[in-house]
């Protein structure tokens, strides 16, 4: 399953890259409860408690940055398992300067297998899209300076 989108943020491309290239900062953008248990060079690992509809549980995952071009792009491969299911994903983010900051074009190629995929088949895409939207909103909050209130 391929999911993609565009993300505009009022922050410098280098700042956007900094967030997406740091697994701890990136994963902190997730709404779902998670841990980052290890970060070693390009590799990282942890857990995330998530699910599709009523099928919820904890996935253990490992990730690896396969490409990090400062200020321009990040590519990550992630493999996770839990609930008798598995997920294999390749995430790519391309960053370009924009008038008011940076534009990020992201694409995820996700292979979900097991009961989470089969029972939640009809809901997987919308769930992923919702979670991605929430993640980018959190990223925006991290990257954009708080507006004076």
């Amino acid at each position, binding site marked *: 399953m391929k999911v993609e989108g565009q993300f505009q943020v009022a922050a410098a491309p280098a700042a956007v890259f900094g967030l997406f290239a740091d697994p701890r900062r990136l994963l902190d953008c997730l709404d779902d409860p998670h841990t980052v248990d290890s970060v070693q060079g390009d590799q990282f690992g942890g857990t995330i408690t998530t699910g599709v509809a009523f099928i919820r*549980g904890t996935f*253990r995952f490992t990730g690896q940055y396969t490409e990090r071009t400062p200020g321009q792009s990040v590519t990550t491969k992630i493999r996770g*398992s839990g*609930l*008798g*299911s*598995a997920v*294999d994903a390749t995430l790519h983010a391309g960053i370009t300067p924009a008038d008011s900051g940076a534009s990020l074009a992201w694409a995820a190629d996700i*292979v*979900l*297998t*097991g*009961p989470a*995929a*089969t*029972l939640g*088949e009809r809901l997987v895409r919308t769930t992923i899209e919702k979670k991605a939207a929430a993640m980018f909103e959190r990223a925006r909050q991290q990257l954009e300076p708080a507006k004076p209130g």
Partner: protein
Amino acid sequence: MSATVHGGIGQSLGRKEDARFIRGKGNYVDDIQLPGMLYLDFTRSPYAHAKITGIHPENALKIPGVLAVVTGKDLDAAKLAWMPTLMSDTQMVLPIDTVKFQGQEVVAVVAENRYAAADGAAAVDIDYDPLPVVTDPVKALQPDSPLVRPDKEKKSNHIWHWETGDKAGTDDLLKKSEVVVHQDLYIPRINVSSIETCGCVAQFDAMGRLTVWMTTQAPHAIRTVFALVAGLPEQSIRIISPDIGGGFGGKVPVYPGYVVAVVAALKTGHPVKWVETRMNNLMSSSFARDYHISADIGCTKDGKLTALKVKTIADHGYADAAANPSKFPAGLFHIITGSYPFQKAFVEVDGVYTNKPPGGIAYRCSFRVTEAAYSIERLIDEIARKVGMDPAEFRMKNFIPPEAFPFQSALGWTYDSGNYAGALKLAMKMIDYPALRREQAERRKKGEFMGIGISSFTEIVGAGPSHTFDILGIKMFESCEIRIHPTGKVMARFGTKAQGQGHETTYSQILATELGIPAENISIEEGDTDTAPYGLGTYASRSTPTAGAAAAVAARKIREKAQKIAAHLLEVSPDDIEWKDYKFQVKGVPEKSKTMADVAFAAYTNPAPGVEPGLEAVDYYDPPNMTYPFGSYICVVDIDKGTGQVKVRRFVAVDDCGTIINPMIVDGQIHGGLNMGLAPALYEQITYDENGNIRGNSFLDYLVPTSMESPHWETGKTTTPSPHHPIGAKGVGESPTVGAPAAIVNAVIDALSPLGVTNIDIPIYPWKVWQVLHDKGVT
């Protein structure tokens, strides 16, 4: 007035077994509780095809109550990682290095309770490297396809090729035929979905003797397989099939859970129970159907059938774990000439490996007969339409006539008896066929879609004669052992095993008639290999044709001996005795008689000189031929133009199963079978996505029809006894499942035929019909 015996053949005796079932007093595998019993669960593969690169059970073993894990490597050390299938293929018990389908058992976890076992199974970490997946058997045959079974010498996903008939003659005759119809048909993968899933309890006693309570339709064959696979002495194995909540072919194979439970019992010294969840059952137990059929049928321009040619790809998943007779890898699919005397026919089938669960079981049909009946009855409708004949008229013109029996089919079967026109005439009368056609014409004028579908099928059951039928070399005979106690009460044991069919009642009725003892005085036992005579089990509608025959023959053996004792009691020569009105009478002096109960008492207290005491007999019945039940079904459907919803308005089912032993049970069998025929026509299928994810692994997606979806079934009967069966019975449990799908689909296609529609693959979901209507500009 002729004498009767209470509960004899032909009476709608209430089912004896229901006294426990309707009170919830049945005893199923999951009801069995043993002291110190442990529970088994499996970590299953999320991948359809992957290398196992690491197994980490540490987290599972930390869970309170988890006692042990078993891996493929553990089993390999005991040479038990692989096991033979009933089709002489091999399948994994647990994988050593590669998984082949999603949901495959990978690691077994043994725990003190089933919750700890489930938690343990979830906690086992397994590292995989995914491999390319192939779930389409046509793609699997292409040279660049991922190889599902590299362990096989052939290095191909092609398992076997099987063919029968006259290829050249069929081709030639099709070329000469004035009308030829080609049709591609797909019969999707489905699951039997018994109320009870599969399971077992394995226990070794202090002497090392193994007892397994198991959901199996064939306990004796399983015992032999266990002995051969595990190397255990066969006398040290006892298989008990307790009450079973539906089998339908799904409980014939050996599943990894059975084997691992035995290993776990051996390893822990405790009894071990394994019971599948519904999802496990749908994901990994043996499937049915999954046949891709391509057929050509020919006839003359005035509608006389000539030739039939069929090419089929059979998707077996990653192992051919069907339960067919050894000589027939595609089962009895070559009954596909059906109720018609084709001059020439040719059938070929190719078995293919894919990344799906193994299997190919019968699902309430006698070894691929549903696939055959569906195909021929769909083809008959299409060629009738092309010729411009009414489908009923076309069938009447082409049926094998009653006087042609025994009839040799173009593909080699010898049909025992039949009156196909009689069954169709009765069905047409019951439903008032001419009136329906008139109504249809009127509705068509109003733009409404009403369809009438016919299916005039021929079944083939009662496997089978030893010259042709065996499973793993064991001939497919069946057995009955009868013992009449001194008080005239009877215990009879059989090699079969009921899963809801009502054997305790049906067998009692046969024996009541043969022995003159009321059915309530007859007890039936099956399913315990320590006590029952060896038999091949219950599936493929074989119990009445084989075990029912064994009962009659064994009873007649008892009568032979009893006649001598009766003669002794009546002080006449045995030659002066006749069995009449359920008594031994002195010929010409009916007032001088002895009942079987009188004789039984004497057999233990006053046996005739030179006659052994006791009154018992056993028969191992080797049927001389298969039996060929048949029927004609007519279905009427209405299609909602807005939604594509198909509503079955009426369904008339006329069955002929030869001599009817219990009309009520036969009706019950037919009602159940019709529902299981409705299911694949309109509701059930299991599909897989490109990653091998199963779609249909819960009842959220796998649509088993309930009473809400089921129409009112109208049943009728004709009776054409089998000439070679001792009581003329043929078997009926599967006929409706075999015959119903084509009737329903023919009705749908008939409704849509004015639009030029010739086929919609089953199941005919509303969206498929809506799509057709939309494409044709109707909706």
